């Protein structure tokens, strides 16, 4: 027994290494488990409020970039106004529309913290469960897609950004029926890769890549970016398309969280399909 104790105390550094490494790995693996919300992250109340204070100062530094992107968005929205189209119809009448109900609602949120340079990046916003934000909602910025809500606390939420190895957003090239998952290969925070697009597609440079509208998270046609270049990887029958992201993550200050009012209905239906298959 004494010899054992002497052995342990002689190589104590090694045993400390084992103990602490085990603790860290347990934390690391538990945190990777997508189903389990962890307390140790930036949606935590204390960390979130510290970041909010600091962000109040940081906001001024990005002000001109943010203004530019908001102004651009205003132009885009104004172009869609009914009054900016030539109206040549004579008949005017008011129609009470009971068929078109609002499917997607947008919740404005301010970015209080973000990471861009890690392999897996997250963004923290100052809206939480109090404001109706739930795990798995989509997030877009003023110029394009941003990510998916990951963890939610009462006042804050953290977003798994597009720049994360587990983020897969189904997207397609505008005007074509093909779609595939969008992945980030972890090299350049401005470029993502669109995979699984069949190579018979006649691809044009700078074609718009948009969300496909499949699934319940994002509405159809939200801009992701523009095609930078495409190439067939290893003689396969699918294209790997490099896409220049429309969102400038460095200047991201305001984002919109998308709430799908028919999400639970669609999910219940799809769940039923699975259950009836399993029976």
């Amino acid at each position, binding site marked *: 027994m004494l010899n054992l104790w002497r052995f342990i105390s002689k190589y*104590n*550094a*090694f045993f*400390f*290494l084992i*103990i*602490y*490494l085990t*603790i*860290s*790995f*347990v*934390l*690391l*693996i*538990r*945190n990777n488990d997508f189903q389990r919300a*962890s307390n*140790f*992250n*930036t949606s*935590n109340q204390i*960390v979130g409020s510290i*970041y909010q204070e*600091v962000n109040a100062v940081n906001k001024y530094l990005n002000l001109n970039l943010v203004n530019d992107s908001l102004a651009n968005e205003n132009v885009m929205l104004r172009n869609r106004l009914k009054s900016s189209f030539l109206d040549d119809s004579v008949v005017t009448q008011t129609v009470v529309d009971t068929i078109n109900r609002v499917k997607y609602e947008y919740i404005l949120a301010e970015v209080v*913290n973000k*990471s*861009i*340079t*890690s*392999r*897996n990046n*997250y963004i923290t916003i100052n809206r939480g469960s109090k404001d109706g934000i739930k795990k798995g909602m989509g997030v877009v910025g003023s110029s394009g897609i941003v990510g998916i809500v990951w963890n939610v606390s009462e006042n804050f939420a*953290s977003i798994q950004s597009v720049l994360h*190895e587990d983020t897969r957003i189904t997207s397609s090239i505008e005007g074509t029926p093909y779609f595939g998952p969008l992945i980030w290969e*972890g*090299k*350049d*925070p401005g470029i993502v890769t669109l995979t699984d697009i069949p190579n018979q597609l006649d691809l044009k440079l700078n074609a718009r890549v948009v969300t496909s509208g499949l699934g319940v998270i994002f509405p159809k046609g939200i801009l992701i970016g523009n095609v930078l270049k495409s190439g067939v990887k290893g003689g396969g029958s699918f294209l790997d398309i490099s896409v220049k992201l429309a969102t400038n993550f460095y200047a991201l200050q305001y984002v919109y969280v998308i709430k799908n009012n028919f999400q639970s209905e669609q999910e219940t239906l799809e769940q039923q399909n699975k259950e009836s298959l399993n029976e």
Partner: protein
Amino acid sequence: MNSIIKNILRYILLVLIQIFLLKNMVLFGLNTPYLYILFILLLPFETPNWLLFFLSFLIGLNIDVFNDTVGLHASACVITAFVRVSITSITVQKDNYDSDPEPTLSIMGFRWFFFYALVLTLTHHFFLLNLEVFRFSEIPATISRVFISSLFTLTLIFIAELLFFRKKQRK
């Protein structure tokens, strides 16, 4: 007592610099400096092992909480602490010094400190970035990130050390 306060202040300062400033600094793609490991480097030699490991784990976890990467920095820091114990037990004979020596540039000299900082920085960055990516196919890209980030971190470590350089006689 003096040394304890100094280390607590250093801890707070380095964590604040890391999470609010250095996290947003990028060099050639995805390379960021991780200056906070300077805290582990500069803990006094007479720190007992249990405290060294505990403090390394704590500062790692602290950075993790602010980066949404629980356990990642903590594990890299614990490995760094282990390498530090090994290096100091091989290269430092405590009898050769008058006062209690500290692992700083001004006391230990350039050659020793450079070796010490280089090995610890490379270890930390290697494990941190590889654990973060955790994919064999991306190892070449990760190794290049390790080297460029280490260069970045080492530069900052030497700038910080030269800023607080105090000339002390070495026997």
